[in-house]
């Protein structure tokens, strides 16, 4: 087995959770890499949708934005953005929405809007984009992010998109019929919500990662499933696929002229 980075393990662990039958609404960065690794390994039939309107894309390199030309050129079809949000997301056609986060809490609520108060932010982040409705209209949500005490916090500064709220049946109480966050993959571990409380609990640790590593980089007291397993390390195929993809991507994105 090759050696691998925590980031690679994160992407590959997330990829494994996807199947041929999935219709994925893909964000940029780690989610995009995970979805395309799944497509290039065990899930060639997966449908990838980017919010720019591209349906059934099969990019050869990872897009820099959610609307790169590559996505349209390899798509089954490309629809308008209003149609994307009305028919495909709100229409309930997305099985899995994939989100990243600047801040997340233990219930999978996400902040990508501001650090500090909304009216007088310390840092103005990009904002929600598609996330508020991806989080509630997709049948289920996967989240990927690198662990840090800045990112995984006791209380997020702003509820950009709703996860399980205060936990338990909070989603149902707001009339949200979809499952919400069912998986969190970090660079250290795989987490799933507790069936009752909906708090994310660690179900597997990536190879070589200790519980201390996980707690040091998490701002809340980490809960563990009864049986915590070790995440199977990347296979040769998974790792080669991811690295080739990243290499092709780096080459493609080095292009351009600037001013």
């Amino acid at each position, binding site marked *: 087995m090759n050696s691998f980075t925590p980031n690679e393990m994160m992407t590959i662990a997330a990829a494994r959770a996807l199947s041929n039958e999935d219709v994925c609404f893909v964000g940029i960065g780690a989610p995009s890499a995970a979805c395309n690794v799944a497509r290039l390994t065990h899930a060639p039939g997966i449908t990838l949708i980017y919010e720019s309107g591209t349906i059934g894309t099969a990019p050869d390199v990872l897009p820099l934005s959610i609307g790169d*030309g590559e996505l349209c050129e390899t798509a089954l079809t490309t629809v*308008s953005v209003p149609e994307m949000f009305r028919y495909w997301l709100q229409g309930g056609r997305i099985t899995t929405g994939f989100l990243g986060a600047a801040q997340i809490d233990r219930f999978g609520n996400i902040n990508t809007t501001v650090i500090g108060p909304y009216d007088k932010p310390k840092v103005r982040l*990009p904002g929600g984009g598609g996330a*508020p409705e991806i989080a509630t209209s997709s049948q289920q949500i996967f989240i990927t992010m690198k662990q840090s005490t800045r990112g995984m916090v006791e209380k997020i500064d702003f509820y950009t998109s709703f996860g399980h709220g205060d936990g338990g049946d909070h989603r149902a109480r707001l009339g949200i019929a979809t499952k919400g966050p069912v998986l969190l993959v970090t660079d250290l571990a795989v987490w799933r919500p507790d069936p009752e409380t909906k708090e994310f609990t660690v179900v597997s640790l990536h190879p070589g990662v200790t519980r201390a590593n996980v707690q040091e980089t998490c701002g809340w007291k980490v809960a563990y499933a009864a049986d915590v397993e070790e995440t199977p390390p990347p296979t040769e195929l998974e790792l080669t696929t991811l690295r080739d993809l990243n290499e092709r991507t780096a080459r493609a994105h080095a292009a351009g002229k600037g001013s």
Partner: protein
Amino acid sequence: MARFMPLADAVADNLRNGDTTAFEGFTHLIPNAAAHEAIRQGFTDLTLIRMTPDSLYDQMIGMGMAKKVVFSYAGNPGVGLLRRMRDAIENQWPRAIETEEHSHAAMANAYEAGAAGLPCAVFRGYRGAQLAQVNPNIRQVACPFTGETLAAVPSIRPDVTFIHAQKASRRGDVLVEGIIGVQKEAVLAARRAVVTVEEVVDDFAGVHPNACVLPHWTISAIAVVPGGAHPSYAHGYYARDNAAYLEWDKISADRDLFAAWMKTNVLDAGPDAFAQRVADL
């Protein structure tokens, strides 16, 4: 009725100080040449509407042209934050700006409702999302059949919309292909619409019957500006200039560097510079 004219005239005839305006383009066909012309002409107190403000609005905000920004994702796509917009929000530099923030779904629906001549858009959104508490333009309506509570936002009705497209016909019809974003809606929702195009063709004979075409009577002015989307891209013409987006992150990080870059590349340049910028892409 669409009239062909130089970009400077098209902007001067259709944009006014204090206007509510949308320069739309969802990652593709972003009307950067039109925005640069607006910057050169020095409009003020604009309300800038765009789902993804990106470097285009970062430049207009940095030049102090914006009174208010309505948006749903204020990032440099694939790169990071919008540093001029942040400077305006966090430090009121070069002036304070108001913001009205939505989700993509809300803005896409609001453009759709604007094109459809409706006063508001109704959709299933913002559930549990805190924006609904800080933005008074996010309200609710009840379905009169099921009682379900749905979100409502005002429709977007710009005074003038700017878009970039691949082709105009001689009659002034406009063809948009590939990632079409919200451009059709942004044009139909607006009182006036200005389009920059890569080229003019005789007509659209042979184009797919269901392609996205805006008839000439929906458009006020057309200016031919090859490369006019740079550093964005034009499907079928040239690729995205990724290096320019990465570079913007550095330029926009420093007020002086920003000012110098704007002088060289915008204020002292003209629409003709765009063709050169995409020559090798």
